[in-house]
């Protein structure tokens, strides 16, 4: 329902743009397509991209695919039909998205991808993604330090089908596994979900009451785990997350969760728009298609500088 409403508003906005050319931006329209804004991470992307596009003189259409590749393809067809100048996309699947991006390319509309990759290069103009491997290693180094290099811990994994779940886990283990006194007693998926993480954490706690730390594949699962630990009176357990959400920032500031890793989602979305602008004006972005953006460790020292997936200078 929500999507339908958003779409209708988007379509209405577009129709108005066409109907009232005196108000239309000179540079044309950029479509911004992401997963559901229920997750503040994706909302930050949309807000960042939209703000930059407006600054650069574009109109915007903001749409959500809810991680449904079919819906995403429909949105692409809509955008193609409307004749947008470029598409900024956080996609709904590394394999399934290839066809949608190819369709836009065939229609002469360049796509600029953020956050998630697709499994082909040469179809999108840019693919700008967080360096999840580097970020996970940062988080793991902090986790090991907080654990005093020793003790029992659990790992919460993201959704198995998601590339980022695997890469973060391997980044964590490339660091943690070199410390022989760090003992993983549980490794379970909570599918990126806060409520699932709560339940999983409860079960892990029952089986391993002597647990000392939890390293989580993202912040929403870290929040779920922390809630379960709090409910069990186990606020001594060290929790480290990944993403850099405002929720985890607030928990860090309140002495709850100990650390997270910021993905520069807001800047990433802005950068994609800048590259779209450069491409539309000069026929080239001037940089490689695939770009890895480094992540930043967030702990009590810098948490108060974090706001909506961006770190103040």
């Amino acid at each position: 329902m929500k999507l339908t409403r958003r779409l209708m508003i988007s379509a209405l906005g577009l129709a108005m743009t066409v109907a009232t050319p005196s108000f239309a931006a000179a540079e044309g329209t950029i479509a911004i397509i992401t997963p559901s804004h229920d997750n503040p991470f994706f909302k930050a992307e949309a807000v960042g991209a939209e703000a930059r596009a407006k600054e650069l003189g574009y109109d915007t259409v903001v749409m959500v695919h809810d991680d449904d590749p079919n819906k995403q393809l429909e949105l692409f067809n809509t955008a193609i039909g409307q004749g947008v100048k470029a598409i900024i996309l956080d996609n709904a699947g590394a394999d399934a998205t290839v066809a949608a991006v190819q369709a836009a390319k065939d229609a002469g509309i360049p796509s600029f991808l953020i956050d998630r990759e697709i499994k082909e290069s040469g179809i999108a103009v840019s693919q700008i993604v967080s360096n999840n491997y580097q970020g996970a290693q940062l988080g793991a180094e902090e986790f090991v330090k907080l654990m005093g290099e020793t003790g029992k811990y659990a790992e919460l994994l993201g959704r198995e089908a998601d590339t980022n779940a695997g890469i973060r886990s391997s980044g964590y283990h490339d660091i943690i596994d070199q410390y022989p006194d760090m003992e993983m007693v549980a490794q379970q998926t909570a599918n990126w979900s806060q409520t699932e993480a709560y339940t999983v954490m409860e079960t892990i706690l029952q089986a391993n009451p002597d647990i000392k730390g939890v390293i989580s594949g993202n912040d929403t699962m870290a929040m779920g785990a922390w809630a379960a630990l709090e409910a069990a009176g186990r606020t001594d357990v060290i929790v480290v997350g990944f993403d850099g959400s405002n929720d985890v920032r607030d928990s860090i500031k309140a002495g709850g969760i100990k650390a997270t890793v910021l993905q520069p989602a807001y800047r990433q979305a802005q950068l994609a728009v800048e590259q779209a602008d450069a491409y539309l004006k000069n026929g080239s972005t001037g940089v490689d298609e695939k770009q890895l953006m480094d992540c930043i460790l967030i702990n009590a020292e810098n948490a108060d500088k974090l706001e909506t997936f961006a770190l103040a200078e």
Partner: protein
Amino acid sequence: MRAMTAILGLSLAVALGACKIVPNPEPGSENAASQTDEDRMAAKAAEVYDSQLVPYVSGKAIDLPVLTSALHGGYEAAGKAHGIRPQAEGSPWNFLVKGQGTVIEANRESRAATLTLDATGDGQADVTIQLGPVIKGTALRDSADFIVFTDYRDQIEFAKLARALNDRTHAAITLPEGDLTGKTVRFEGATTLRSATDPILVVPTVLDVQP
């Protein structure tokens, strides 16, 4: 894994009442499509390491004092003059560096073994050489201008490549047994620096103990 599959296959065969021996698959008989990311990237690392990467580092490495004095002039300036970095906003500079120094600390017990060198004769640490088996970071991969992320399927593959190159480095290191403290060591290698004051942590492509 292979052994497990064989055992599983065997027990299934027994369970089915057939007296059939399931042979292990012949090593090297898999085609590229059935290889894991890890295997493919290990093969890629093997292909480029000796033939391209080692000579590339030798050809481009600057002397350690050149790097340290450039860093005194500021991180960005040093990077622009001598560094290599991927074309992505916020990427740190990587440097290829060579030199020699006296071992002032040898940590060979850790999985992340290191040698710390004094290169200026003041008794202070100037550079730390990573020996592995655990080698941190992606300095080798990211300082090679012929390795480009766009050419790889995704981050997983690209991370495995970095790891495989680090593994090659560890495998290539041959050091005499015993305490190396006080010995002179010559090195060439790559380092990633995130600021001018970051400790210089080198992944070596050349490492010799001088007689």
